[in-house]
């Protein structure tokens, strides 16, 4: 009896050990709108007094494609941007929409798609919350509260989420 119990416990511990190693921890999304889930939402505390950025990971769990068509914040002028590098020159480009393909992950991360906010009405400090509205072609509007963190923390969260 004792022997069998010990074996069961050992097997259970081994299985637990495997599952914690092999499966990424389940995370609750920061916000959900139908089949769209937002993770890793954050705004770095800007180093400049008047310009900031917001990043997040968007998972479309549905079978239908959607499109992020607009961003807005009461704190300034928000625009969707991407970074394009041609002939060694990196430039930010204003984009009108970002596709969110079905069963896929869209990453707004440094050096790629991001929300740029210019003409900041207040300087974001660590601990502040930034109100952000995303508008999707199918899903409609999603109101978000983005925590302001240090650049390092925002970048580390995004990198962890990419598993690198």
């Amino acid at each position, binding site marked *: 009896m004792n022997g069998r119990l010990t074996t069961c416990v050992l097997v259970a511990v081994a299985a637990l050990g495997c599952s914690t190693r092999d499966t990424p921890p389940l995370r609750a999304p920061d916000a959900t709108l139908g089949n769209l889930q937002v993770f890793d939402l954050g705004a*770095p505390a*800007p*180093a*400049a007094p*008047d*310009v*900031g*950025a917001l990043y997040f990971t968007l998972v479309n769990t549905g079978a239908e494609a959607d499109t992020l068509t607009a961003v807005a914040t009461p704190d300034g*002028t928000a625009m969707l*941007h991407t*970074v394009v*590098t041609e*002939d*060694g*020159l*990196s*430039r*930010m480009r204003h984009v009108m929409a970002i596709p969110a393909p079905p069963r896929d992950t869209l990453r707004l991360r*440094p*050096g790629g798609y*991001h929300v*740029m*906010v*210019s*003409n900041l009405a207040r300087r974001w400090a660590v601990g502040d919350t930034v109100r952000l509205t995303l508008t999707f072609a199918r899903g409609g509007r999603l109101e978000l509260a983005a925590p302001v963190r*240090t*650049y*390092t923390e925002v*970048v*580390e969260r995004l*990198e962890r989420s990419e598993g*690198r």
Partner: protein
Amino acid sequence: MGGWVEGRIGGSADRRIERRVVGHRISDIGQRVVLFLLLTACIADAPPDPEDLRGALLPEPLVGVDFTLTATDGTPFDFRERTAGNTLTLLFFGYTSCPDICPVHMANLAAVLQRLPPQVAGGVGVVMVTVDPDRDTPARLRSWLDNFDRSFVGLTGTLDEVNAVMRSLRLPPAVLDPPAEDGSYLVGHAAQVLVVTSDGLLRAMYPSGTRQADWAHDLPLLVRTNWEER
């Protein structure tokens, strides 16, 4: 070793304190330090295999990282002379109204240098040259850099002067985009961090998107390389 630690331009107060603390603890962890130094001495001469680096090592070093621009305190800054005491200088061209690439590079470097052992971090200087001198006043540039690390050097010049420096490093000159309705504008610029060794040679480049883990992996390798043998 003390030579390049002292020679490092404007080492941050925090890291100086860290170095002193480490100094006091040497007697306690003497054995480990001796072991570390022995290990370092054994591998100090091995140049890095490009395959081992996450950044791009230039096949041939580029000669002539030699220019003078103006530091944020208004004094002339002779890059070659003022960085000769660093084992490595990380040189970047960017601007403070840049919300994405520029602050992320600076934040990543600051975070990694804070965490690396002082033997590595103490030999590394960071210099940022603005490609937007009209908006980046010395005060604005200083305040922006201080968000990351007070030891980071900020340089300004006219856009023509800065572009001439970039051309000398075979980088494309910066391009100012047409201003928006509110007068704000974006600047296109080479987004890589350049690695310059104490002999003034450009050795490697790190593109936008380089992660903290990449820096933490490569900087110790780059610092302990005997570049004269390459």
